[in-house]
């Protein structure tokens, strides 16, 4: 089996609202896969269906080649978006309990839990009650709970939300380390910059439908090298009115300019040369951020683009 997880025509409706509306998707093994989309796009519902916490109305899901309804949970570590730990229990007890649910004996789970507390630099807190910890600490515990038992697939729903940069880095390093050892990582986020740096393959979901999927490099290629990165000093307000500019993502002294098809980047360069002090001019593929805005902002959602082939 090639895919770690594959979804075929999965639909889930809550009353009249179709949270997931016919998604077909393959998540390859050993990759870091980004499940992207705006808030309410259906990411968490999709993940819950993969975990068999809720079941699809129609369609099938398989995990490592087995239907998800056949208790595949122990193959998958899961960090839900809404964190939840027993508040009154001690940190080490909580982790030992979670670890024991992966099939380990309580004693073995305890040893493994201790190891992860050390890796995440929170070993000193092992005997504290969960409710005494800060949010960021609890997040670490929750992460440890997901990776206990060394599952071949790890699903992380918004793993970096609410974390300071130091801890984000710590998390990122752990995730990369697990991936190097062969763990398939699926992570869902709406932070495009993190996704752009980490993911080799992505799927973009909007309003319950798949908008775009494929290896990140090919996705970007599909949009062509028709964007200009411009760093400058001066008033760049006129940029959006230039001929050939489709859309502009401006930050004052930094702009990403998306060109209309067939427009010449050199014409832009010539147009700005006299009016701004240009410190950087680069012709690039659009950032994931801009692809996201373009696709999600577009009205005709539902037109599936499959770019390249995994």
């Amino acid at each position, binding site marked *: 089996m090639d895919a770690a997880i594959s979804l075929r025509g999965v639909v889930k409706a809550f009353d009249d609202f179709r949270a997931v509306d016919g998604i077909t998707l393959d998540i390859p093994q050993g990759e870091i896969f980004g499940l992207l989309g705006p808030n309410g796009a259906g990411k968490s519902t999709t993940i*819950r269906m993969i*975990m*068999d*916490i*809720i079941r699809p109305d129609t369609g099938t899901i398989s995990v490592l080649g087995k239907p998800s309804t056949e*208790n595949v*949970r*122990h193959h*998958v*570590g*899961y960090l*839900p978006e*809404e*964190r*939840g*730990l*027993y*508040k*009154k*229990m001690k940190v080490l007890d909580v982790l030992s*309990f*979670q670890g*024991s*649910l*992966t*099939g380990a004996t*309580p004693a073995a789970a305890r040893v493994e839990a201790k190891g992860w507390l050390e890796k995440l630099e929170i070993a000193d807190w092992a005997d504290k009650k969960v409710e005494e910890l800060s949010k960021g600490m609890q997040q670490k515990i*929750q992460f440890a*709970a*997901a990776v206990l038992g060394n599952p071949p697939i790890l699903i992380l729903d918004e793993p970096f939300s609410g974390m300071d940069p130091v801890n984000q880095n710590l998390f990122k390093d752990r995730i990369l380390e697990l991936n190097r050892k062969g763990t398939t990582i699926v992570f869902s986020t709406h932070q495009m910059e993190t996704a752009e740096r980490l993911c080799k393959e992505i799927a973009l979901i909007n309003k319950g439908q798949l908008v775009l999927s494929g290896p990140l490099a090919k996705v970007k290629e599909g949009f062509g090298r028709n964007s200009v990165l411009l760093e400058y000093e001066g008033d760049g307000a006129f940029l959006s009115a230039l001929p050939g500019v489709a859309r502009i993502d401006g930050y004052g002294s930094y702009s990403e300019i998306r060109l209309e098809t067939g427009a010449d980047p050199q014409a832009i360069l010539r147009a700005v040369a006299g009016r701004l002090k240009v410190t950087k001019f680069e012709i690039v593929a659009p950032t994931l951020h801009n692809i996201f805005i373009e696709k999600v902002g577009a009205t005709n959602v539902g037109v599936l683009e499959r770019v390249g082939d995994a």
Partner: protein
Amino acid sequence: MHNVLMILRREYLERVTKKSFWIGTAVFPLLMVVLTTLPMMLVGLGGNDQKTIALVDATDKLYDPLVKELSDKKLKDGTPRYAIEKVPLAGTLESTEQSLEPRARNGKLFGILTVAKDIDAKDAFTFYGKTVGDIRSTEEIQSALRRAAIELRFANANIAADKGVVDKLLAPVDMETREISKEGGSTKKNFLTAYFGTFAFVMVLFMTLLLYGIAMMRGILEEKTSRVMEVLLGSVSPQELMTGKILGIGLVGLTQVGIYAVTAGVLRVYMGAKMSGTDMGGILSTFTLTKLAFFLIFFLLGYFMYVALFACVGAVCNSEQEAQNYQAPITWCLMLPMIATIFFVGQPDSTISVVVSLIPIFTPMVMFMRICVQMPPAWQIALSIVLTTAFTWLVFRGAAKIFRIGILMYGKRPTIPEIMRWARS
């Protein structure tokens, strides 16, 4: 199976290692003893002041006998509890009484006792008091008065009767009730010991079923609101989670019941002999092994049935306030037999008792009451166990489905028809 064990283990250890479990276990029987004996003790406590009673006696013959009858009622320091003040009749009984009322009002007099000339007339004796609620005192006065009046009646009828004869004539006629048992012979048993012996057991059954049902519901609600549920369901299936929780909490319940059973057994062995003959001894003697065995059977049957129902409530609600509404009918099913204990104990083999004891939702409480009072035919016990087991199995199947759907529902609360649809799906 491993996961079920792990869930069970956590539930059990988390609950049993809590101080509140042990305090609750110890306090509950104490509370029961205090609640039943305290009112009696308070009534018997009585004041420690001598009470003065004005006697307005139209016959003029009752003062001496009344003083004699009350003479054995003493305060702690040995002075008589009651002082009788003889007030001569001035005008009518009523006017004399009215002239004394100011003294009663300011507390100098505990009460005024008037005796009409004809003691056989209706309303011949009247007691006026500021606090007629002092049952103990009014009762002591009344019984003394009764003896005194009866002596007077004998005298009026020209029958020579001293106190000894009167006592003999007034000796109560008690009827001992003995229950004819199946094994032959009979055991001394009366309604009160039957009632309290049964009631103690039924109370423990009721409290544990309710307590652990609610503990289950709370546990699930807590896991829902703290979002632990989703993390757990990432590791175990809803069925495993439900089974583990039910068994774990059930084991806690059994631990508690076990503590009570051992305590009752020890009490019976060490205190039974000392207290035999007393009512307490009678109640203790009702704790037999057969009864304990049936208690265990009906506790388990009731536990699984009710805890599964409470689990459903926990699964479909988002907060305890919401759960109140759904919980009420289940709690009532437990409470109704409790309230009607006096009926089932009094008429254990009436048609109503037999029918009600065969309805699964009532079986654990009512069939157990019947067994306590009078062993029902074996086929009825067997049938009730079969019916309850079948019903519990259905509840379980439904609960597992409701659990699966309801457990992650936040926000909108489902209606009863929706819940029924889930259960059947």
